[in-house]
C-alpha cells in the first residue's frame, strides 16, 4: 500500500513482529509439534504406526464417510444456492439462517441429537433394533453427524457467488433456446466451478477431521467405527504418543494441502470466488 499516511517505520515493524509472533506461537508451533513428535522415535516407528491395520481401517472409514457426506453436501449446496440466489421468495432470510444453524451448534450436541433419534433409548431405537438396522455406533450415524457438521459449507460459498453473478447469463441462455438443464450445466456450473471447488475443499477438510460429533455417535468400536481423529484419541489416551502424532500427520498433511489449494484458488481465481473479487 503506497501512501504517505502511515505509521512510522519502527511502529510498522513492531506491529508486524507482534502479529507474526502471535501467529507463530499459536499456529505454526502446534503444526511443527505434530511432525516433530511423530518422528521423535525415527522414521521406522512412524511408518509402523501408519501401517498399523487399525490405522488403515480408520483411514478407510474416514474416506468412506467423506465420500458419502461430501457429495450429498454438493447436491444440497447446488440446490440451495440455485433456489436462494436465483429466485425471490418470502422467508429467504430465515432459510439462510437455518442453513447456517449447524455452525453455531456444538459438535457434541450435533452427535447427541442423532443418539436421541436413533440410539437405544431414542425414538426410533427399539424399531431399528427390531428391524436389525444400526445407525448409531455404525457408519450411517457417522455420515449423519458429519453431514450435520458440514451442512452449510458448500451452500455458504455458492449463495453469495451466485447472487453476485445475477440471472442475466441464464436468461440469455434461455432466450437462445437452451433448456433449463442445459442452462445450468453449460452456463451456471462453469461460472461457479471454482467457488464450488473452494466450498468442497473446506467441506472435505471438516468432514475428514470432525471429532466431537463423530465421537458421540461412534461408540469407539476399534477397527470398526473409529475414524482417524477418533483413532488418534485412543492412541493418545493409551500414551502411545508417537503413533498418535504419526496418524495426526496424515490429517495435518490434509490440512496443509487444503490450505495450499485454497490459497491458490484465492490467488488465481479471486474474481470467481464469492467475496474475494475486486
Amino acid at each position, binding site marked *: 500500500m503506497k501512501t504517505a499516511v502511515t505509521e512510522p517505520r519502527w511502529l510498522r515493524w513492531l506491529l508486524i513482529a507482534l502479529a507474526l509472533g502471535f501467529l507463530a506461537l499459536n499456529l505454526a508451533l502446534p503444526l511443527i509439534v505434530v511432525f516433530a513428535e511423530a518422528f521423535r522415535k525415527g522414521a521406522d516407528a512412524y511408518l509402523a504406526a501408519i501401517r498399523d491395520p487399525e490405522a488403515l481401517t480408520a483411514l478407510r472409514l474416514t474416506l468412506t464417510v467423506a465420500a458419502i457426506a461430501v457429495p450429498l453436501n454438493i447436491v444440497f449446496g447446488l440446490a440451495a444456492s440455485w433456489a436462494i440466489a436465483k429466485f425471490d421468495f418470502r422467508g429467504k432470510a430465515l432459510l439462510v439462517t437455518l442453513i447456517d444453524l449447524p455452525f453455531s451448534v456444538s459438535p457434541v450436541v450435533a452427535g447427541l441429537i442423532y443418539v436421541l433419534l436413533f440410539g437405544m433409548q431414542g425414538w426410533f431405537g427399539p424399531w431399528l433394533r427390531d428391524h436389525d438396522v444400526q445407525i448409531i455406533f455404525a457408519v450411517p450415524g457417522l455420515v449423519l453427524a458429519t453431514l450435520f457438521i458440514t451442512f452449510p459449507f458448500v451452500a455458504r460459498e455458492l449463495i453469495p457467488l451466485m447472487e453476485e453473478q445475477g440471472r*442475466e*447469463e441464464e*436468461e*440469455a*441462455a*434461455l*432466450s*437462445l*433456446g*437452451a*433448456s433449463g438443464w*442445459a442452462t445450468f450445466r*453449460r*452456463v451456471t456450473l*462453469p*461460472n461457479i466451478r471454482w467457488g464450488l471447488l473452494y466450498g468442497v475443499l473446506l467441506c472435505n477438510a471438516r468432514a475428514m477431521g470432525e471429532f466431537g460429533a463423530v465421537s458421540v455417535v461412534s461408540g469407539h468400536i476399534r477397527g470398526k467405527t473409529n475414524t482417524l481423529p477418533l483413532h488418534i484419541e485412543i492412541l493418545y489416551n493409551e500414551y502411545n504418543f508417537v503413533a498418535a502424532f504419526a496418524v495426526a500427520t496424515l490429517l495435518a498433511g490434509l490440512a496443509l494441502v487444503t490450505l495450499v489449494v485454497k490459497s491458490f484458488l484465492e490467488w488465481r481465481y479471486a474474481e470467481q470466488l464469492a467475496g474475494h473479487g475486486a
Partner: protein
Amino acid sequence: MSLSAQNVVKRFGAFTALDGVSLDVGAGEFVALLGPSGSGKTTLLRILAGLEVPESGRIAIGDQDMSDTPARDRRVGFVFQHYALFRHMTVAENIAFGLTVRPRASRPSRAAIAARVAELLDLVQLAHIGARYPAQLSGGQRQRVALARALAVEPRILLLDEPFGALDAKVRKDLRRWLRDVHDRMGLTSVFVTHDQEEALDLADRVVVMDHGRIEQVDTPERVWDRPATAFVCDFLGGGNRIACTANAGLIDIAGVRLPNLAPPLPDGPADGFIRPHEFALAAPGHPGIAARLRRIQRTGPQAALEAVTDSGSIIEVSLSDPPADLAAGAELVLVPTAVRAYRAR
C-alpha cells in the same frame, strides 16, 4: 414478423411497472422504447422476450399468441444491456451457443455451426477475435458479439436493451449506424430500449415514449419531435423553456404574442408553453414579447447561446444565429417566441 402487446400489466410488489400497455410493431420496423428510468421500457422489452411474466395481457408474434410460450421457444433475439456474455466461453463459443443447445434432431452439424459462426463473425467485423474471451474485449466488441450471438439462432424479432448504454460517445455513433444497417440488410423486426432521445430520434422508424408504466406517444421521430402529444413528451425530448401562457380560441397568448399551438388542442385558460431555445427572435423595445435582461452570451462561430432573466426572475435560454455584434451582458431584450407547444397548466 410483426409483434404486439395487448393490455400488459406488470407489478413488482407495490410498484406498477406497466399499467395496461398496448403496442403494435409492424414487420420490418425499427422501434425505439424511450423514457426515463423507471418508466417501464425495459420491463416491456423483457415481457416481449418472455424473460418476465406479466400479471395480465397478451403477447403475439406474427399471428401467433405467445403469452404462455417460454422464452426459449419464442425465437426472439435478446441483447442484454450489459451483454450477459458467457464469460467462460470464447467469442466463437458464445455465438455458437444457441445452435449447440438445440435438441440433437434439429441441431446443425459441427461444420454447419462453424460456418454460421464464421459468417456472423464476419457480419459483426470480428473475424480475427473468435478465440478470445469476453473479458479480453472492448465494450464495443462485446456489444457486437452479443448481437451476433442473438442473431445466430435466426430470430424473427430482435430486442435490444440499452444497446449503446455502456459505450463511449464515439463508439456509440458508429455502432448505431452499423446496427441500423444490419437491421435493414437482414430484414429484422427490432425493438430497442433507450433513455437517450437523440439516439431514439436518430435511429428508429417509430418512437414509443413511455412514462410511469404508460405509453405517452407512439409516432415517427419527426412527429414526436415537432408535435409532442403531452407535456411530458415535450419536456423529455428537450422542450426548452417552460413559460406560463394563456390558451384562447385555439391560439396561445404569450406576453402579448399570439401563436398557433403545435401541441394537441386544449381548452381556453391558463397553459404551460414550451419554447425551444432556437424558437425566439429579438425585437425592438416596446414591441410585444418577453422583456428580459441578458445575463450571459456565449458565441460559437455564427451561433450564440444566450441566458436571459425575466422581470419575475426566471431564466430563459435562447439560441440565435448571427446575433448583433454589439450584444453584451446587461442589455435589455425583448424576446419574441416564434413557435410554441402548450399544454394544460399543471
